[in-house]
């Protein structure tokens, strides 16, 4: 293939295909630099014996660039089969569609602020709807499938239980080991029981459990609802006159409200087990002393706060998971994004609320 210029006629010869066009482009830009393309008034296509859409696009590029400089440009002499391909793939008269303009900094800032505000309003609306229907749902099971709450509770519990057990034991053990060493130095080893009981009940129990449930079940809630949204299942439910929140979210809400305190209780007990091992093996405390000190130090208030917190965290997880699920945009890839966003935000929210609780009820 070749490009040559003679008497203001640009002659093209050979194959103009996606394989040869890159080399032709290089050759043409060389010719352009030597300024010999300036006066061209005609392009001779007679020597082209094979062309594809890349070749046609290349010709169109020449046409439009040279045409702008030289005014009218003539093509001549293409073989019939080559001309047919040119006609099929010509880009000369195609409309140019503008890509969406990028926003400026302040425009984007304003846009983001409005979006954030809307997201908060939507989130709070959803939260109140979920609360409302869950409250209504206690009295009447209308719009929910029989046994769905129990099924969700079993699922939630069985998903979280093994990880909660393992992590709580390790944390109880390590916490006791670290503080046990310090306490022993002061001869205050017996106080380990007090320390661990308070820490686990007021802080760590609800926190660890909520983080695990957010990761395990919050993500599952988000991806389930998001998938249903993307595959039009939620629309199908509406068409069967079923409210998506009542049908999908309320059973989860009830289940998690019920299961979360149990998981927290379990987490505390397992952590105490880890602590008791340290107390007995390292600090020479008897099991009886450990248990009785642990129970004595706790007030009713501590326990109420612990359960109150865990129920609140549970609700936060359900609401955030549902929020991202219902918000999903796009196809299947939106589901993944919604799930990740749900986990990150619910863990963030849980820790934030935990801080608030700690400040309020010191």
């Amino acid at each position, binding site marked *: 293939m070749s490009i040559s210029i003679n008497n203001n006629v640009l002659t093209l010869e050979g194959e103009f295909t996606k394989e040869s066009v890159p080399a032709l482009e290089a050759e043409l830009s060389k010719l352009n630099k030597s300024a010999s393309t300036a006066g061209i008034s005609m392009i001779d296509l007679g020597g082209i014996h094979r062309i594809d*859409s*890349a070749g*046609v696009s*290349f010709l169109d*590029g020449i046409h439009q660039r040279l045409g702008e400089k030289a005014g009218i440009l003539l093509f001549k002499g293409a073989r019939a089969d080559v001309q047919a*391909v040119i006609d099929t793939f010509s880009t000369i008269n195609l409309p140019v569609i503008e890509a969406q303009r990028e926003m400026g900094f302040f425009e984007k800032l304003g846009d983001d602020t409005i979006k954030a505000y809307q997201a908060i309003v939507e989130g709070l609306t959803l939260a109140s709807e979920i609360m409302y229907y869950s409250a209504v749902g206690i009295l009447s099971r209308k719009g929910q499938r029989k046994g769905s709450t129990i099924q969700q509770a079993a699922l939630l519990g069985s998903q979280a239980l093994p990880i909660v057990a393992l992590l709580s034991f390790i944390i109880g053990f390590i916490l006791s080991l670290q503080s046990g060493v310090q306490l022993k130095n002061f001869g205050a080893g017996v106080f380990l029981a007090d320390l661990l009981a308070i820490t686990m009940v007021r802080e760590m129990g609800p926190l660890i459990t909520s983080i695990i449930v957010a990761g395990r079940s919050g993500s599952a809630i988000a991806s389930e609802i998001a998938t249903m949204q993307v595959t039009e299942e939620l629309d199908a439910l509406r068409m069967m006159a079923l409210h998506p929140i009542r049908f999908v979210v309320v059973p989860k809400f009830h289940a998690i409200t019920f299961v979360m305190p149990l998981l927290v209780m379990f987490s505390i007990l397992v952590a105490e087990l880890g602590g008791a091992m340290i107390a007995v093996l390292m600090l020479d405390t008897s099991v009886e002393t450990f248990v009785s000190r642990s129970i004595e130090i706790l007030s009713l208030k501590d326990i109420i706060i612990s359960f109150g917190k865990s129920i609140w965290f549970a609700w936060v997880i359900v609401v955030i998971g549902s929020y991202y699920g219902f918000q999903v945009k796009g196809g299947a890839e939106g589901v993944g994004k919604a799930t990740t966003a749900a986990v990150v935000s619910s863990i963030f929210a849980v820790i934030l609320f935990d801080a608030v609780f700690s400040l309020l009820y010191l």
Partner: protein
Amino acid sequence: MTSSLVTKTPVIEIKDLQAKYGNLTILDGISVDIHPGEITVILGGSGCGKTTLLKNMLRLYEPTAGSVKFWGEETLGMSENEFYEVLKKTGMLFQNGALLNSISVYENISIPLEMHTSLSQDVIDRIIRVKLNLVGLGNAIYKLPSELSGGMKKRASLARALALDPEILFCDEPSAGLDPVTSEALDNLILNLKHQLKMTIVIVTHELASIHRIADKIIFLDGGKMLFNGTLDEARGARIPQIDHFFEVGKF
């Protein structure tokens, strides 16, 4: 477009192809030649294995027995890289579109061009616009797949299949879900590709009108076997009850 036109040897030769999902045999003993520059239509009831046949020919599923030759070369034993060279000369419109969902229509079509050619951005840009225009989607160029209707997704997928000017084009139900006018325009595009570009085209379709407009050859599948392979007129004359029934029921 290539020498295959002159020599008239089949571009695809399938012999005794067997396809299974697990232990379930879907297709058995399929033997057929696909000739260059022809439009071959694969027919058969829903679930009879048309998509399966396409996917096994292209080794998206590995056939359990038989032989598939492209341009005279056996492909079933080929290494992945060798087979990619075959795939670069073919395009496939999947039954559900199979666009990459996280990127725009424009990027979907630009991917094969960027990855397999060293064309300049200007040329790639033009190719994308003209291919989308051919399928009537010029306006949807910057949309995301999730913002397209079902029929639009299919057409975008066709534009992507055409990105590299394939020598063989496979289409799995291109006109299902399209209105008759768009469907006819698509048929005309397919005929145009055959006449102007000498493309070899294999299509799965149920639309009788479309079959009449475009088919050079038909392949009829039923019960895991190939009942018939030949021209439309031959199919009419063959007096095979299933085929007669198919055309009878499909009439207005």
